[in-house]
């Protein structure tokens, strides 16, 4: 019997994440979408999703008394951050005129600059970065197991993480510039893309997470 908690703090489409986890989970695994600190801390694994604006995410986490819960989960169990659930792990974000993050991973969050151009076609690159792009795995990790190098995952975001510790980078993607799309530190793995919306490659990553013991 194993419990995976999806942290519900009112941001974004938690149902998608839960449905994808339920689809791949074995019968002994229970997927629980919850805002309860007790349930989150009792779970064997924690998924931290998120969409929307950084300031709203931080406000909701604070309002629901979940800041310390997330920090405790990060210390103690296999932890998967997705999209905004990656970005708020860093120290600060340029979004909303400057927003403090949880400061769990060193680095900041930046906006894609305006005026980026596709070097091949000469066309302006759209923001948000939306669609299927390639993920280049920069180091081996249990969550990459069985996923081909440069597989495509689904992205939708206007901001990206800029970590200061290069050994915490697990994957990069190119969109006008090379940006970090996956970070790993100990029992924490966090991605900018949406594995729950990335067809087989995404389901493979989630399945890897469900059997990960948090060790690298």
């Amino acid at each position: 019997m194993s419990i995976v908690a999806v942290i519900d703090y009112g941001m974004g489409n938690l149902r998608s994440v839960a449905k994808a986890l339920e689809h791949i989970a074995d019968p002994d695994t229970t997927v629980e979408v919850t805002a309860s600190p007790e349930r989150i801390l009792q779970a064997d694994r924690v998924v931290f999703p998120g969409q929307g604006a950084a300031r709203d995410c931080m406000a909701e986490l604070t309002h629901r008394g979940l800041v310390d819960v997330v920090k405790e989960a990060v210390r103690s169990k296999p932890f998967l951050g997705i999209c905004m659930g990656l970005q708020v792990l860093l120290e600060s974000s340029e979004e909303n005129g400057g927003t403090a993050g949880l400061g769990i991973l060193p680095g900041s969050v930046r906006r894609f600059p305006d005026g980026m151009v596709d070097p091949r076609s000469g066309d302006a690159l759209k923001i948000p970065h939306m669609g299927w792009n390639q993920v280049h795995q920069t180091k081996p990790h249990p969550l990459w197991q069985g996923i081909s190098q440069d597989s495509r995952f689904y992205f939708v975001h206007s901001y990206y993480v800029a970590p200061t510790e290069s050994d915490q980078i697990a994957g990069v993607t190119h969109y006008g510039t090379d940006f970090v799309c996956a970070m790993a530190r100990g029992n924490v793995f966090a991605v900018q893309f949406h594995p729950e919306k990335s067809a087989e490659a995404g389901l493979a990553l989630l399945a890897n997470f469900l059997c990960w013991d948090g060790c690298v």
Partner: protein
Amino acid sequence: MGLAKRIIPCLDVDAGRVVKGVRFVGIRDAGDPVEIAKRYDQQGADELVFLDITASSEERETMVHVVEQVAAQVFIPLTVGGGIRSINDIRRMLNAGADKVAMNTAAIHNPGLVKEAAERFGSQCIVVAIDAKQVSTGDEPPRWEVFTHGGRKRTGIDAVLWAKQMADAGAGEILLTSMDRDGTRDGFDLPLTRAVSDAVSVPVIASGGVGNLDHLADGVKQGKADAVLAASIFHFGEYTVEQAKRTMAAQGIEVRLDE
């Protein structure tokens, strides 16, 4: 290598069944939404759009169940449009498992809705659908206006300016349909697509008029669309999504293909 151009099959849903389309004469039943969605997913569709064309509000509830069932089995982005009129409608669809909602008429009648929705749920899930028709004639510079009611009602709103205004209000994407081309199989209105894509900084999905696979490539290369949407060419097995991708790849367009 980089971001792939997306191919998006569109499913018109009437009272829980996928139909060929409201704009085609004599609707032909094309089947079960979950089965069709799974088939497109297996063929490599990058996203799916479900358009609820149900007339009666009682039957609207069936769309929520359709979305719930599809979202439990298909793990690519799902957009739902048709009958979305309020923040509450948006929340219901997102909770059912939709990733994005598309608003059309409601955005025209209540322009504040897009801004409010983007602030509440994030721009990433707010799509504004624009039905446009050319209104210029002869040697005039091309001009398009927004139409409603399946292309019958003219609004007087310039389509390119409207797209810009909606992107500024917080729309994360524009779904642009040429009502001149819809159902014709003559290809996208490329000047319209190009004009809107050049005017906005958010992605544009081209729609309306696809009759063959080269049309899809034209939408990207000449129309500068970020994604291309088609319905009828996929529904009856005429072409698969994979064939569409191979055709586009052969023309140098980056697509997501299993190698």
